[in-house]
């Protein structure tokens, strides 16, 4: 077990090394890139991806996948934006609570289908993804909610600075700490790993696998809802297609972060580093004068390379454990 933990930490250290050397490589030609102010910007810009990747991590660890996160984000964002136009005086705390509640509710819809009807998660979330997008169109009538229709307090919250970092970044940090505590320090967090690692064994240890997966979807949904408000407030616009295709970037961040799509393996550090890897690339492209059209292909190539490397790592890990067991006897 200690050996296993060491290996996992080695993988995260490796990824950290890749992210850091990537930033340093860019800095050799453009020193301004690693200035503290710019790094804070990159982190802030990547914060939505980090929050969503942390939620997705739990879902994937529990041997599911949530492709509806971007649509959930857009729907929640639209609802809170419309609510804000109707009730401009609503305190930000209330807006945040509503956003998290709506997101959790949408996540629970996914979860209930997976739990009670045992429909494969990929089918459920493919379906809800298109349904959520359609619902945005229905409630908004295809119209945009623009900056001038939103109240000042609504749009300024993500930008509010505290100790040099905007609120958006702080929320990402808080979510990371909360998820880390959840998955390492609570029975529920451990049950995600148990349910994903070996569902049959999990049942025999008294874990309700379906229920565990349901809660994974609720958490992923709640975080998507939270990001929905932050996204809409940050860009000060809400429409049907915001964050279109973002779900793939979220899954990509998880895969790059070493979270096994087969379930049971994944860490908070991995999800964050996977997201930061994509964030650094996204922010570096304009700096090094490469057309932003390259971004899609690069993240695609990164997924393929990461999954290949991770598969290699898993193979050797299996052998090492076996050897140790023999030696122990």
């Amino acid at each position: 077990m200690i050996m296993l933990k060491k290996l996992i930490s080695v993988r995260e250290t490796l990824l950290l090394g890749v992210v850091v050397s990537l930033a340093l490589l860019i800095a050799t030609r453009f020193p301004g890139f690693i200035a503290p102010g710019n790094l804070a910007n990159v982190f802030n810009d990547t914060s939505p991806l980090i929050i969503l990747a942390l939620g997705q991590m739990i879902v994937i660890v529990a041997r599911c996948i949530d492709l509806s996160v971007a649509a959930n984000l857009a729907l929640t964002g639209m609802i809170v934006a419309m609510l804000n136009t109707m009730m401009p005086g609503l305190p930000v705390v209330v807006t945040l609570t509503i956003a998290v509640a709506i997101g959790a509710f949408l996540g629970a819809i996914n979860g209930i289908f997976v739990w009670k009807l045992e429909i494969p998660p990929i089918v459920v979330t493919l379906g809800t993804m298109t349904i959520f997008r359609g619902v945005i169109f229905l409630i908004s009538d295809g119209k945009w909610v623009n900056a001038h229709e939103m109240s000042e307090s609504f749009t300024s919250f993500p930008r509010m600075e505290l100790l040099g970092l905007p609120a958006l970044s702080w929320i990402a940090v808080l979510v990371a700490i909360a998820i880390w505590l959840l998955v390492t320090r609570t029975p529920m967090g451990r049950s995600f790993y148990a349910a994903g690692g070996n569902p049959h064994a999990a049942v025999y240890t008294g874990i309700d696998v379906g229920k565990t997966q349901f809660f994974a979807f609720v958490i992923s949904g709640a975080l998507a809802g939270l990001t929905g408000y932050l996204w809409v407030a940050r860009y000060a616009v809400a429409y049907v297609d915001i964050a279109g295709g973002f779900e793939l970037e979220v899954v990509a961040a998880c895969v790059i972060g070493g979270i096994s799509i087969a379930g049971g393996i994944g860490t908070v550090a991995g999800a964050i580093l996977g997201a930061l890897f994509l964030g650094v690339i996204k922010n570096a492209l304009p700096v090094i004068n490469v057309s932003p059209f390259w971004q899609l292909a690069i993240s695609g190539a990164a997924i393929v390379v990461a999954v290949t490397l991770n598969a290699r790592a898993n193979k050797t890990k299996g052998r090492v454990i076996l050897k140790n067991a023999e030696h122990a006897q």
Partner: protein
Amino acid sequence: MSITAREIPDRLTSSTSKVLRSWELLLLGVAVGIFVLNSLSSPYFLDPWSLSDATFNFTEKALIAFAMALLVISGEIDLSVASIIALVSTAMGAALQLGVGTTELVLIGLTVGLLCGAFNAVLVTVMGLPSIVVTIGTMSLFRGISYIVLGDQAFRGYPADFSFFGQGYVFWVISFEFALFVAFAIFYAVLLHRTNFGRSIFAIGNNPTAALFSGIRVQRVKFILFLLTGLMSGFAAICLTSRLGSTRPSIGIGMELEVVTMVVLGGVNILGGSGSIPGVVIAAFVMGLVTFGLGLLNVPGIVMSIFIGLLLIGVIALPRLVQQLSQRLK
């Protein structure tokens, strides 16, 4: 995800074929119902030419869905098909700039489709990676290459005879695309239900390990299925490019979801092991009729996607719900 053990009947054909038959019958009922509803709600529906137009809604997606059905039955999936369309279309557009003719365009399109399929196939079967992650990656990669080549530009000016594939008619109201759809439906139905190769796909989907021990070359079969999916995406790309008359990097975006919906709606088990081509054919008609009928009623495309999403979840949820309720009543 379900963790209850799959029941393995001692006679595979009798019980599964019964279930499948009833599923396809149900689906056929839905198709007929939608057809009747459409003809009642719009006076323009029951016209041979408008019905012929309706087929364009599903023929290109169905071409891919046939190969995808085989792939899903074998326990794999390919989410990169829409991006293969983009890459194939971009390759044809780039070749066009060099001044090649229609025959070369088609050959280039099919070759690029095959190569994309081969790329997925190598990663999944040779490297042993999970197909869902690999194809999410290549989905970004293939379309990303199109974006690198095209940016915000478009390729136009396809030769006049190239437009036949997407706009031409073989006989009266029968379009070339529909004829291709029928031909491939028959080809894939025979391949899946009447050949050893088809039987081995079911065997692999039900139990890959057992299939391997019974002498089936599991990885080779899967390799071929990825190749076929790439090739069919090539065919779809040629039809779509010809119909639109231009190539943009966003061509066919989101189509992979509709293809998977069609396959699942057609009664193919997303976890592998069961499914049929007749089911996929009926599902293609159902989806085509729904979108066309709603279009005649001036329902916007995004609202139609709600129906498609509900259809996808509904057709899988309903039988399970009924089953659970009947078990509770016992």
